[in-house]
């Protein structure tokens, strides 16, 4: 049986599995007995480009079918600093699995700079996961976080930009109807502070992501960046989501989160 390699981002880990991506996503979200649930986000890895991070011989000796012939669902290879250990060229594509086990594949794509907006909201996902309001665009945000010259930095960061609607331009916008974030008043305070008084470019809104976040709140897509490069994984547009990926999109809309 073919062995697949996945870099899970919730929680951060490197996993070998005999399940293809859609089935792995389903298993990862729901478990074997369908008694647990939780969204999954993971990369598929090309082991041939992974360098020292993956020892194929060891993996092949551990990731073997069960006695009844069924495929091995997961063999954990690394659970700490996994993201930084995989070279970016080994990353094939990103998979998003809803908490009822439907999986969407996203190919990497070139990031095209948009006309800048004064305010952004980022959900950092791996290796740390605060939610941050920022004055920086995604490229600068990633660079800032992974800059070794800064007193606090991470070698690599995986994050998503989230929708702010009118708040991106005006934190005092009176009507903000379709943002399901908890404590919207606090978010407004953070954005207000950033735009009026705060000297630094970023401000933490939530220190630690305690629950699933809603895929429908993603603006644009996901970013994997370090101090040198930024890989962009764009979410399909609304029309594609409602047609080609409708089953996934319906599930994504049915979950709860923050």
């Amino acid at each position: 049986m073919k062995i697949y390699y996945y870099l899970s981002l919730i929680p951060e880990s490197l996993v070998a599995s005999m399940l293809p991506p859609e089935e792995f996503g389903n298993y990862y979200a729901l478990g074997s007995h369908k008694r647990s649930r939780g969204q999954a986000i993971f990369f598929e890895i090309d082991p041939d480009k992974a360098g020292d991070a993956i020892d194929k011989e060891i993996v092949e000796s551990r990731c073997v079918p069960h006695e009844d012939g069924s495929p091995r669902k997961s063999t954990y290879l690394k659970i700490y600093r996994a993201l930084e250990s995989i070279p970016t060229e080994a990353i094939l594509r990103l998979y998003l699995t809803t908490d009822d086990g439907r999986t969407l594949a996203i190919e990497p794509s070139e990031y095209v700079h948009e006309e800048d907006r004064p305010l952004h909201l980022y959900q950092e996902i791996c290796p740390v996961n605060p939610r941050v309001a920022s004055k920086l665009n995604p490229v600068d945000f990633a660079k800032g976080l992974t800059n070794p010259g800064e007193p606090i930095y991470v070698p690599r960061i995986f994050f998503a930009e989230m929708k702010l609607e009118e708040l991106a331009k005006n934190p005092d916008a009176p009507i903000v109807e379709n943002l399901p974030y908890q404590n919207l008043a606090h978010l407004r305070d953070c954005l207000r502070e950033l735009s009026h008084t705060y000297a630094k470019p970023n401000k933490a809104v939530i220190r630690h992501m305690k629950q699933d976040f809603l895929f429908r709140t993603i603006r644009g897509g996901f970013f994997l960046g370090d101090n040198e490069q930024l890989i962009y994984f764009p979410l399909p547009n609304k029309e594609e989501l409602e047609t080609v990926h409708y089953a996934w999109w319906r599930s994504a809309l049915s979950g709860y989160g923050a």
Partner: protein
Amino acid sequence: MNSILFWITPAASIAALAFALIFFRSMMANSEGTDTMRSIAEHVRTGAMAYLKQQYKIVGIFFIAIFLLFAYLSYGLGLQNTWVPFAFITGGFFSGLAGFFGMKTATYASARVAQAASQSLDQGLKLAFRSGAVMGLVVVGLALLDISVWFLILNKWVGAGSQQEKMTIITTTMLTFGMGASLQALFARVGGGIFTKAADVGADLVGKVEASIPEDDPRNAATIADNVGDNVGDVAGMGADLYESYCGSILATAALGAAAHVHGDPEMQYKAVIAPMIIAGIGTLLSILGVYIVRTKPGARQRELMSSLGKAVNFSSILIVVASFLTLWALQLENWIGIWGSIVTGLVTGIVIGKATEYYTSHEFAPTRSISESGNTGPATVIISGMGVGFISTVIPVLSVVVGTTLAFCFAAGDWSFSTGNISQGLYGIGIAAVGMLSTLGLTLATDAYGPIADNAGGNAEMSGLGPEVRARTDALDALGNTTAATGKGFAIGSAALTALALLASYIEELKIGLVHLLEKGHAFVFPNGIEIQTAEEVRQLGLMQFMDYFEVTLMNPKVLIGIFIGAMMAFLFCGLTMNAVGRAAQKMVEEVRRQFREIEGILTGKAEPDYAKCVEISTMGAQREMILPSTVAVLVPVIVGLIFGVPGVFGLLAGGLSSGFVLAVFMANSGGAWDNAKKYVEEGHFGGKGGDVHKATVIGDTVGDPFKDTSGPSLNILIKLMSMVSIVMAGVTVAFSIF
């Protein structure tokens, strides 16, 4: 002349049934779409028919037992008219038949509507509405057929001392088939309500809340049961409910008409008896016309869709105002203009109650939006504000019935001082106001039955993975169905209140018949006030208010107050029993869906199909088991109260049950409707939209409201009418055997 006019009723009945057949055939000529669409529709059809078969088995046992009891009372003890057992059976049979046809049509229509919506919104709307019209027309067609045939049979076979007495016996005998319809309606409403909400709540709890599976997702084993439930609850249940109100209003008014002229001109009495039947017949013909008016344009918005249905109802309502004027003029009934005023009052009362329901349950308006907003502070405040809105929403319907009753009474009595001098005419006015409200039932019921058809079409489109444009159309049709379902419930409750008032008055006529039977067997009768009567003729000469005096039906009589307390308690007890029934059945459903997720490998990956039939079976068995206790209580309590506390106790029971049941029913239906639409308002992108905490809070509100609006609330309509019907049918027993 008058006989010719009577024939409008059977002619309208045949026309209604013929058009129902035409609409059914035209619906069946449409394509059912792809293999997947057909397969889903087949699952729902099979489940619905399995449920109905099981329900009719149990109801059949009840009916046979009660038939035998009535046969004994009629033939053994001579306490009832000998036609009563048969009238009872036919009422139940026709009500059940209407439910069967309506559900059969609805389950054949859903996939076809989804397929028609892939052509255009107009085609989807027309097909859904005309399929709903099958239910509407079958209900009124069978009701008018039942009434016409019984009237003709009894007119030929009943013998009596005078023409007036004969008419009184005919009308009061016919009234008893209302009990058959009521009992069948109660089973349909309670059983259907428990089924649908056990499936719905079960599907939601385990699907949406636990497994985050979207609504109408084929991976959820309870999805098909949920779709089956829409049919058994909202089609068969609603149809049986309104069939019963329709028959009850016509028959009670006929009985009151006969009573009002029992000492007067026989021809005038005959006219008063047939007037409600003729008006119902004309209303049916106009309803058929109205069905052809419903159409819309591509891309119509919610308000435009609503207005296309509204146009048809308004068209028929305006024409019924004119037609009833001409009918009453042709009949030359005594004070016919006043009686026409009562009919218009009934129509307007129905419209006002419908609009008030829409105001309190649609998210186009402030009350429902305020519930959505309260989700900002969690589910508890959603529940609190939903209950608050529901309580306040009772004001307009209650005042409408108050004003409607006042006007109908005064118009028909021809006196604005509420004098009891002309009370029989006034009560006749209240009855005919209910007939006016229900005269276009063929059409209003079509809008009600349209709801579950559109809902199922939406579910079918989702499960079959039809394109986004089709789904948007079926969603629009479904959203319209939610509003019509809510207004339909308001209408059903309002008509139940007016009908129950008319039935309350008819109870006295039944008491008279009971006393006549007793006295004809040679027993003297001593009224509670000490007056003794020896002959049937003395009873016939007694006026309505004298009867109330003789039986001491006054608030100072503790038996009346006791009855009122028990009646009020009955409404709450009945709600409690039905709510708990839903809770228990839903728990079983949740456990079954969890089991299937656990044990059937591949459900969540879509590789294996869930066992839908098992969930349908659980809901069916749960509904059948759980409906027996509330239904038995509803039948037995009026008999027991009558046997212990006599006529005053029964009057108190009916008054307490009617007043508390009516208000509670409005509260429950509107709270539930408002919670449902408050959630939908959030899902449309307000207060954070889907997935946020406000959404979660409003989903909880909606789940709490489900049994409110679809089980307990609608069942209360029937409870208040059934208690009246049982009291009417058992009047002879009450008179003969009451302890106090």
